[in-house]
Structure formats: C-alpha cells, structure tokens
C-alpha cells in the first residue's frame, strides 16, 4: 500500500474505527423528547407574530392607493396613475420596516426564548412574510392599474418594482448603519423622499414611462434586486445568535 497518499491513510483510519455499534440507539431516539417542530410549521407560525396593525395599515394603504389611482386616471390615463401608484409603493415598505424594526428593537427575544430557531432565521422568515405581503399588494395595484390604463401588466410591474426595491434597499442600508430605536423615523424620511421623487420623475425625464426607457427600468430592477439580496444576506449573517451556555455541561 502506498502511504504517500494521505487519502489512503484517512480511509484506513476510518475503517479501523468502523465496527463500533451502539446498542440502545433506536430505543433512546424513539423515547427522547426532542423538539419536533418542522420548518414549515415554524414558518406559518410566525404569521401570528406580525401585529394586526401591520396588516390593517397595509390594507388601508392598498385601498388608498387604489382610490388615488382611480382619481388620477381621470386626468391623464397612464402617467398620473402610474405616478400615484409609485408614490404609494414606498409606504408599503414602511409598514413592513416598522414591523421588522420592532423585532430588531427587542432583539426578537420574545420569540427566541420560545423556539429553537436562530435570530437570523427568525429575521429572514419575518422579512419573507412581510415581503410576500408587499408583493401581493404590488400585484393588486398592478392588476388594478392594468384595468385603468392601456399599459401592459409586465411594464406596470416593472415601474412599481423600482420604487419598491429602491425603498427596500435604502431602508436596509439605514438599518445596517443605525442601531437606534429611531430607525423607523429615518426610514419614514427615506420613504417620503422616494415617494415624492416618484411624483416628479417624469418632470425630470420626459416620457420616462414610455417603451423607449423600458430597458433602463429593467436594468434598474435587476441591479436593485441584486443589491437587495446582498443586503439581506449581510443582515442575516450579522444577526448572529446567542452564545452557548457552556455551564450546562460543567
């Protein structure tokens, strides 16, 4: 046997310790009372931890957005309605930010004490749930806009996604920069700026909602999406976990 190959030594060592077989393993694992909550149950269970006011505010914003779109479409069929919807989109994010910031503010201890998932996992699940809610609201707005304007649904989706993703990115950057409890106010300020910007974008760039600018819109969505994923990964990594209580084994 050629022992110059480290892998062969590793294999030899592994084989030399193989025959050990514990006798009571099946009985023990059958009787042991270990936590059996599945990830699916955990994920669905987190819905109840999102405050009722978050759902209500989101629905209120959605209904207001539809109302404003309806009003705007009287003046200029396409652009006004899109602008109005875009101006509302950052506030969908703000509702989610307020909820996530609450988790951050309290360090999610209230949840972490009662379940076996890490803070990073909890944060991610909550962001996914709130993200799904926001995307549902965006889809609702897009479909409503489709009926109010003659713009295709895909283009409407892109137009609304840009302010949405931009707000998400800016609020996440703020969340990573500031640890204070006032983070929601900072985010509110940013949402306001994005919202107002949406109202004046077409004054800065003429025909920005026309087909000739669609490539730029698409590009913006792609870039913002990439930045968002990167920011989320960074936040989850930084969220860490509680250190083990090694005194347990002392």
């Amino acid at each position, binding site marked *: *046997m*050629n*022992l*110059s190959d*480290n892998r062969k*030594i*590793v294999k*030899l*060592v*592994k*084989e*030399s*310790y193989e*025959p*050990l077989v*514990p*006798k*009571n*393993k099946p009985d*023990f*694992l059958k009787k*042991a*009372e*270990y*936590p059996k909550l599945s990830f699916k149950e955990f994920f669905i269970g987190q819905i109840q931890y999102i405050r009722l006011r978050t759902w209500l505010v989101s629905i209120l914003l959605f209904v207001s957005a539809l109302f404003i779109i309806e009003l705007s479409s009287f003046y200029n069929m396409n652009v006004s309605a899109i602008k109005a919807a875009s101006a509302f989109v950052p506030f969908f994010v703000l509702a989610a930010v307020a909820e996530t910031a609450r988790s951050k503010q309290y360090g999610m201890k209230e949840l*972490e*004490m009662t*379940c*076996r*998932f*890490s803070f990073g*996992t909890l944060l991610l699940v909550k962001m996914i749930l709130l993200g799904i809610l926001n995307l549902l609201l965006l889809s609702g707005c897009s479909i409503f806009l489709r009926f109010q304007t003659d713009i295709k649904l895909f283009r409407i989706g892109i137009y609304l996604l840009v302010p949405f993703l931009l707000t998400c990115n800016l609020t996440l950057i703020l969340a990573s920069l500031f640890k204070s409890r006032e983070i929601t106010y900072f985010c509110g300020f940013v949402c306001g700026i994005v919202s107002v910007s949406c109202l004046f974008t077409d004054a800065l760039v003429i025909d920005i909602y026309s087909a000739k600018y669609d490539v730029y819109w698409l590009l913006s969505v792609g870039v913002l999406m990439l930045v968002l994923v990167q920011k989320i990964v960074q936040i989850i990594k930084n969220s860490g*976990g*509680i250190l*083990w*209580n*090694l005194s*347990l*084994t*002392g």
Partner: protein
Amino acid sequence: MDLEEQYYKIFRYCCLKVKRTAIAEDLTQETFLRYFSQSTYIELGKQTAYLYTIARNLCNDYFSKQIYWEELKDDVPYTEGDTDMKLTVRQAVEMLPKDLQEIVLLRFVNEVPVKDIAAFMELSRFAVNRRIKDALKRLKEVLREEDFS
C-alpha cells in the same frame, strides 16, 4: 441535523475517550438529553460543535470521578472482524498526543467539518488544518516504522 448519525458519531467519540462501550453509550445519551433540554440553542448553526462540547465535558467529568477508584480497561469491541492492519492503525492513532487523537477521530472517522472542530476545540481553522497535517505526518511515520508501506 441527522440525529441517528450524530448519535453514532458521539458514541464513537465517547468510546475513544472513555474506552468502555457501556459507559460511552450512557454518556452519549446524557449528551443528547442535555442537548435536547436546551431547545433554544438547537438550531443556531453550531450544533455539532455544541454536541461535542457537551460530550467532552461529560467524559471529563466521568474521568474526574472514576480514575482514582478503578483502573480503566479497554473494552471497546473493535476486535470483531479486525485485521492486523486495523489493529496497527488504531495503535498508531493511540500513539499520537491526545489532542491529535481527538482531531483524527473527529475529522477522519466522524467527518466533522473543520469549522466545527475549530469551534469545538477553540482553535482557528488554520490551527486545526495544521494539526491535521501534523497528525497525518506522524501516522505516516509510525505506519512506515511498522513496515506498513
């Protein structure tokens, strides 16, 4: 985490430490009971190192209580189906310093990732890798001396 697989690996680890299968199995079960009792920590991403930490501490506790009262005898039943080659390899591993023996068992036999070994042994990954290389070098030398090449 695959509990069945981890049970087997922790058992093997305890066997290496205490050299008695019955005691090793008791310690393995105690390890898991303590692990389960802390459900808060179970999904924090360092479960493997946490399990090994509990197991090591329990083995150390066992030694601190027993060693003055009785002489330990090796009853680990590796002999069934053993060949000279396997016996020699185990002897070669036992000739290594204790910390290297532990690393060899964790990395080569239990296939614990280097990052978990580093967390468990409170070393850097670099230090773990260096010790793995050192262990391999020493094993190679011992096995050559035993005319195993």
